[in-house]
């Protein structure tokens, strides 16, 4: 991967995303595909994460007599880090491999060349629509994952202490700031952009025939996941400036 090529790729995405003709139909189609593909897995893992995190944190807090802080601890952990991270990693795996392999196989079977040669602007159709879709859908999936994870946490607490729904979520909302929510959504947007960009880049520039398809899917997942952690760290540093 050459930095210069990636820079040109990003430049092309912005240029074509911001200038007509816009790919509304394809963007909507891709948004649906992204949401539909990841919805169940994100819900399932977020729910389990909420349950597991609550069950693991409870004994430690109990030993300090601070069990009542559980909703506060869980909500901050879920919204600031756990929710975006889980969603980002799930999407990096699921969407990264999917987009990377799909575009790479189109490349090696000359389908992208066929679009190019008929003047149908494949970059805009294939790349811009996917990057925009992942960028738009990731924050929505993160918000959804946060809610499901908190629900999982509540059900766990309720099953142990018979805590009421209202009491639990009052405690949650009292300990969550707008900065937490805002930074989580911004972070998720960057996650989405990174996953879309990396997957499209490696798929669209795939080489080496069929071997290249597997390589593209693998590279898309590995690099996307690495970038999720890098962005998470940078976002933490940046958000801390405002706390």
């Amino acid at each position, binding site marked *: 991967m050459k930095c210069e090529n990636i820079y040109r790729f990003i430049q092309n995405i912005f240029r074509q995303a911001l200038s007509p003709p816009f790919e509304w139909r394809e963007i909507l189609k891709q948004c649906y595909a992204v949401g539909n593909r990841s919805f169940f897995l994100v819900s399932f893992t977020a729910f389990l994460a909420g349950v597991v995190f609550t069950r693991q944190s409870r004994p430690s807090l109990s030993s300090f007599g601070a069990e009542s802080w559980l909703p506060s601890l869980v909500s901050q952990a879920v919204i600031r880090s756990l929710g975006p991270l889980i969603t980002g990693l799930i999407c990096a795996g699921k969407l990264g491999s999917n987009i990377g392999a799909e575009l790479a196989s189109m490349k090696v079977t000359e389908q992208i*060349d066929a679009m190019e040669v008929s003047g149908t602007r494949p970059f805009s159709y294939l790349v811009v629509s996917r990057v925009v879709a992942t960028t738009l859908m990731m924050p929505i999936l993160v918000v959804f994952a946060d809610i499901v994870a908190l629900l999982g946490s509540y059900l766990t607490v309720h099953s142990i202490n018979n805590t009421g729904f209202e009491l639990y979520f009052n405690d949650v909302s009292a300990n969550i700031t707008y900065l937490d929510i805002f930074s989580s959504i911004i972070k998720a947007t960057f996650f989405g952009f990174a996953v879309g960009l990396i997957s499209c880049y490696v798929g669209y520039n795939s080489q080496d025939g069929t071997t290249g398809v597997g390589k593209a899917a693998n590279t898309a997942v590995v690099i996307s996941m690495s970038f999720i952690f890098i962005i998470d760290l940078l976002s933490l540093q940046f958000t801390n400036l405002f706390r």
Partner: protein
Amino acid sequence: MSNATSNIDNSHDRTDIESTEIVAHVVNLKKSFGDIQVLKGISLTLHKGENLAILGRSGSGKSVTIKCMVGLMSADEGEIEVLGYNIRSLSSEKLNELRQQVGFSFQSSALYDSMTVQENLEFPLKRNLKLFDKKKLNYLVKTALQDVGLDGAATKKPAELSGGMKKRIGIARTLILKPKIMLYDEPTAGLDPITSAEINELILNVRKKYNTSSIIITHDISCARQTADKVIALIDGHSKVEATFDELKITKDPELAPFFKY
């Protein structure tokens, strides 16, 4: 040679093309991949209504030549003029404008495998002509499919088609934009002699019905014989000779003669 192959008489289709109007002109085209220079100076001229075959061994740069002609690959040196556009100095908008007038039939057919045949054919219409009227789309798709003899294949996915059918659909997808020039990359590669003959016949019919000029990349002697008015032999990165098939057939040139032995 099969009966089907030998039965095709295209002499009446070779309409003594003496058109002076040049639709594509390539001069001294050079292209290297790393240290390997594939094209060392290709020159060719395509006249209106003409079928020009480029004959050469595998890896001789035949496909590279036509890919340079539509800007899919960039040439290192030389001049390429297609339909009055100088390819090497075109903006991406102008290149797209030109590409809509040039049909490119890929060796692998390059059908969009996530789409049905109908959607494959609708794709360039929707993208280039912004045509979304279902009735009109259906009519154009049906006509294009009829022209390639596959009017019942609209609902099929590319994976359900045979090699010959894929080639035909690939050709139909390019024809739907009514191109002025057709570029066929190995149209008969991997096909049995009977299907090859059918594709050759289709190439001739396309010229007749759509009034196209064509470049046919091939290493298949019978394809060149049946479809071409003029043949260019590509030897060692150079366009060696330009002649009719019959003239080439009796050549004593040691580099060309082996093509006609097999």
